[in-house]
């Protein structure tokens, strides 16, 4: 069962995404704070991360950049979420694997997650864990 970490400072977003992902059969953990995200990644070891750009205190893109530099986490696919559809370009520059513009529906979310979990690099991170 694939594990997904949701990082968003809006409780309702975390709640609704968790509801849907758990229903779809994933194991989900979440955090509202960007700083806590690192600890969660180390303990939870997700197969995929859903990361909001706007987080209290930190920029989600900085987290993404840091994770992509770390050899232990660089293979985890990261999907960035933002209400600014214009942020797609900068998300790519920071190393995000994909980008989801708010508001999105269940199908878009699940399809994107499926797509990235199938990719070989995510399997590698599975075997690494």
């Amino acid at each position, binding site marked *: 069962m694939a594990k997904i970490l949701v990082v968003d*400072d*809006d409780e*309702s*977003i975390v*709640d*609704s*995404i968790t*509801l*849907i992902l758990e*229903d*779809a059969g994933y194991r989900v953990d979440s955090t*509202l*704070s960007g*700083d806590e995200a690192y600890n969660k990644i180390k303990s939870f070891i997700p197969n995929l991360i859903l990361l909001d*750009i*706007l*987080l*209290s*205190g930190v*920029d989600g893109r900085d987290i993404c950049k840091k994770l992509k530099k770390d050899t232990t986490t660089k293979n985890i696919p990261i999907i960035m979420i933002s*209400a*600014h559809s*214009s*942020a797609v370009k*900068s998300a790519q520059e920071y190393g995000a694997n994909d980008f989801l513009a*708010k*508001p*999105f*529906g*269940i*199908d878009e*979310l699940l399809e994107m997650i499926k797509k990235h979990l199938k990719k070989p690099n995510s399997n590698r991170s599975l075997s690494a864990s």
Partner: protein
Amino acid sequence: MKKIFNYLNPFAHLGEKDYSFTLPLFTSLLISLLSELYALQIAKDPMSVGGYIIFINFATVIYFAFRSGIRGGLISTFIIILYYFYIIYDRNYTGQLFTSGIVTTLVLGSIYAAIALIIGYLKQNIDNLIEREADGKRRLEAIVDQMPVGVVITDSEGNILQTNKQFITILGRDAIKGTKIGQDTVDSITDFYHKKIPASQWPLAQALATGKSMTKKEYTLAKDNDNNTYLQVSASVIRNKVGKTIAAVSVVSDITQLKEIDKRKDEFINMASHELKTPLTSLRLYIDSLLKNRGSDQVKTLKSIKLQTEKLQQLIADLLDVSRIQTGKMIFSMDKFDINDLIKETIKDMQKTTTKHNIKFKNKGSLMVKADRLRINQVLTNLITNAIKFAPLGGNINILTKKTSGKITIAVQDQGIGITKDQLQKIFERLYQVSDAQEKTYPGLGMGLYISKEIIKRHNGKIWVESKIGKGSTFYFTLPLKN
């Protein structure tokens, strides 16, 4: 000297004192007197100077008809004829000499009068034309001067002929120091990309060079301070009957305010759409899950949907407030009330929204203030909401009130994540910094602090924050006390 010149100047009476009666009268009398003196005293034969006298009289009539119109010419003629009759009377002419004297006088008189009429009439028309043209020019100058846009008119070479007040207001007096467009007189004009525009590329210079009209080109006028002035410039040439360029005109509008409004509108729309997208996203996900019959607890999902719609409602109320602030339409109704009571009420409502936080307020007794109770409640709610939001791990939130001379200070203290120095300066100032250089944003601050700042400002109070990263923040605001 100038006075004498004015007396002699045939156009001097235009807009001056009216000498059109007295001057021909006395001058003609004087000329007749001098002619008589000359004829009797200096010339041996008075009759031999008749030709000269007639010549001088012709000149006098022409001069006064031209200077003072028909009336001047006729007055002069009348005096001269009187003088001729005096001569006939004084010299005791009889017989044929008398008859020819009378005939000559009448014929000359008729000619003088005819000249006075013709020249006077022409002169009148010329005067009217000049006056009409001058009036037209005055009207035009008044219109140009009153226009809300800057106007500059040059000749076909680009030499400045005329500017209006607004032109100088917009571009400064320096702009017309060098009086030729096409020389670098104002070097601070830049184009849309902040590239300096050589004067030869100004719309007016280009219109002169190409003969084509340049419409609504936009430029930035970089002044000493940071505030740029945005200009919209049009220019076209003026042609005469045969199509030759005789002048050029350029109209300069200061569109800075329009640009500002445009920018603010964009910022507002950007912020509004951003704020609305978050609750919309969770709403869509919850509704999708209900539609697909997913999620075990449907009542719980419906409750979440309700919460999100309430959030949306609050967001829309905030957006309307921001819009009211920006258009200066936020209305306050001032009342006397106990601020301690209000704080207690607010805490009661806010405590319901969290289980992780403990909101404390110790003050007892009453503290009367004069303020808009609902709006102050809004400020307190905003500050406590932020305190909850930015202390995700929970903790105490302390509310304190302190009475000092003439005012009361209210503090909301949290044990949250704190605010960086960089953000401290910005949290009240900007709604959202959506697209600065790195597209970095200061998230989660929403509109609450901006609205709060405006509310407190309108109460003649102050709002500020002290914060330590990792320790928490304290927000303060003051309200004037009601004595």
